[in-house]
């Protein structure tokens, strides 16, 4: 769909061709244009419709669960709301993420894009940023939904209304990382296989503490070295698991939060670089 901006000659669509003509073909501008169009594409794909469903489910669930939870409505709303934010987000990241490149290849719009002054790396990065923007809107709306549900059950102010936001942003960075993984796999594999592999990385990423414990329990040096290597190479998503703590009003420290964000940036940079490397090698003839 980003090809649409490249072919479009209307003034509202900033195609790279037009950018080239007007002399504004900076890398940032190109990436921004691809990102904006990826976001529009996601909106047109009705990805954001899940938000309405989510909000309705959450409010309905809050009323219903209040009767069943023995006075634990607020905790259950936070657990349910943030878990749903993560789960919905992971599904969007995986299923939209794996199709980002594949769809362009399948529809042959990629050829039109790459025939313009857009590098493959810029194309990938633009796609990535566009999906991250979609996820950001998702996470913000879902976080607001959780806050509103809390206000509803508390009939006013509740301390968790604010306390959930650091955990919500950590969920966003986890989703950004998962999107990077999906993009990497989709740069060389089919959508179905990419989705499966990305989902496995999500699972392993949350079991990495067990991987380390398993490594330390092994007798053989080679096996221990292998599992330790896996532990450090695979993304450690437990750094972003603050849902349960948030439900008790516990906040991550500033150091924990910033280190998790830094880890996400570094890992995403690695993933996008690897994706670009593989994508550059691909022959689309």
């Amino acid at each position, binding site marked *: 769909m980003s090809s649409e901006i490249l072919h479009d000659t209307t003034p509202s669509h900033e195609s790279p061709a037009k950018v080239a003509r007007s002399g504004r073909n900076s890398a940032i501008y190109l990436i921004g244009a691809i990102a904006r169009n990826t976001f529009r594409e996601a909106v047109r794909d009705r990805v954001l419709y899940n938000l309405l469903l989510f909000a309705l489910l959450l409010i309905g669930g809050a009323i219903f669960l209040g009767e069943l*939870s*023995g*006075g*634990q409505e607020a905790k*259950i709303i936070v*657990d349910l709301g943030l878990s749903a934010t993560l789960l919905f987000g992971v599904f969007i990241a995986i299923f939209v993420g794996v199709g980002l490149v594949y769809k362009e290849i399948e529809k042959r719009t990629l050829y039109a894009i790459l025939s313009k002054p857009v590098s493959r790396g810029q194309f990938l990065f633009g796609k990535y940023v566009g999906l991250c923007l979609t996820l950001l809107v998702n996470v913000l709306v879902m976080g607001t939904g959780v806050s509103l549900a809390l206000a509803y059950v508390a009939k006013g102010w509740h301390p968790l209304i604010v306390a959930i936001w650091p955990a919500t942003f950590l969920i966003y960075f986890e989703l950004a990382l998962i999107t990077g993984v999906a993009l990497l796999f989709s740069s060389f594999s089919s959508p179905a296989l990419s989705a499966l592999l990305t989902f496995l990385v999500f699972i392993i990423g949350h079991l990495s503490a067990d991987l380390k414990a398993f490594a330390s329990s092994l007798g053989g040096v080679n096996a221990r070295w292998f599992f330790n290597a896996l532990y450090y190479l695979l993304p450690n998503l437990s750094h972003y698991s603050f849902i349960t703590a948030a*439900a008790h009003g*516990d906040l991550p420290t500033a150091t924990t939060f910033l280190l998790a964000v830094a880890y996400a940036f570094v890992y995403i940079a690695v993933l996008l670089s690897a994706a670009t490397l593989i994508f550059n090698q691909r022959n689309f003839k």
Partner: protein
Amino acid sequence: MRVRKSLFRLIPVILLGLAVAIGLSRWMDQHRQELPSASSQEEQLYLQGKTVKRLSLAFNGLAADWYWMRSLQYVGRKIVKYEDSQQGQRGLDDLAALDLRLLPSLLRIATTLDPKFLAPYEYGAMILPTFNRDEAIALVQSGIQQNPDDWRLRQHLGYIYWQANDYAKASETYNSGAKLPGAPRWMAEMSARTAAEGGSRRAAREMYQHLYDESDDDQVKDLLRRRLMQVESFEDRDRIRFVIGQYVKQFGRCPATWREISAVVQKLGVRVDPATATPIDPSGSPYELVKNGCDVDLQIGSLVPYK
């Protein structure tokens, strides 16, 4: 033409396949292997807390909530089933008869998944002692290990020891809780009271009242409300027995009806129904004169716990 030919070939295969599948399914249902009665009697827990924690990935809080609600539903279902079979009122004080064998495991899993989730510890402290005191103590002690700064868990542990008539340990536990940040002053007072008065009614009333004030759980609050009513009813019945004793001294026989003593009973602070002149218990049910009017008891159906 070829398409139509293959269609005519495939439709019978599909229909035949479906028919065979349905037939097989029915046959398997009829010849299903009987499971041992112990495992088919009621639901079983197949997973341990640590395994569930691993499997729940980032959703351990949600899984803990699910196990917590399952615990509440489990107890609620057992109560309803028991009431249906007994045709009588039965409160949480009678849980020993309900065979709640899964409850300790359910609460264990909930607290393993989310060790800071205090509600299951509180619920366990209130309900488990009725049939498994050791499990209740172990559950709350594990909560204290995970939440060393939470004074409420020490309040619950103190309550379990107090119920077991281990007043020294109850006092010690209250005392350790009183030293924690945020602990109310009455924790120290409860420590002193349990040490000095043990199982006195005053100590009991304060114990139940504080637990009632701190709890958010409706089931637990209901249990404590009944316990508070029970303490009040014990005092009512002592007063009524005193009046009966005075009556016997004066008339040489026990009263035949409530009307003969209701005015004196009311003066001593027992609620009396003005229409029938019958003293009523804290739950609103009338007391009953028993042993030919020489003693007083709760009426069957009263919400005040008997034991």
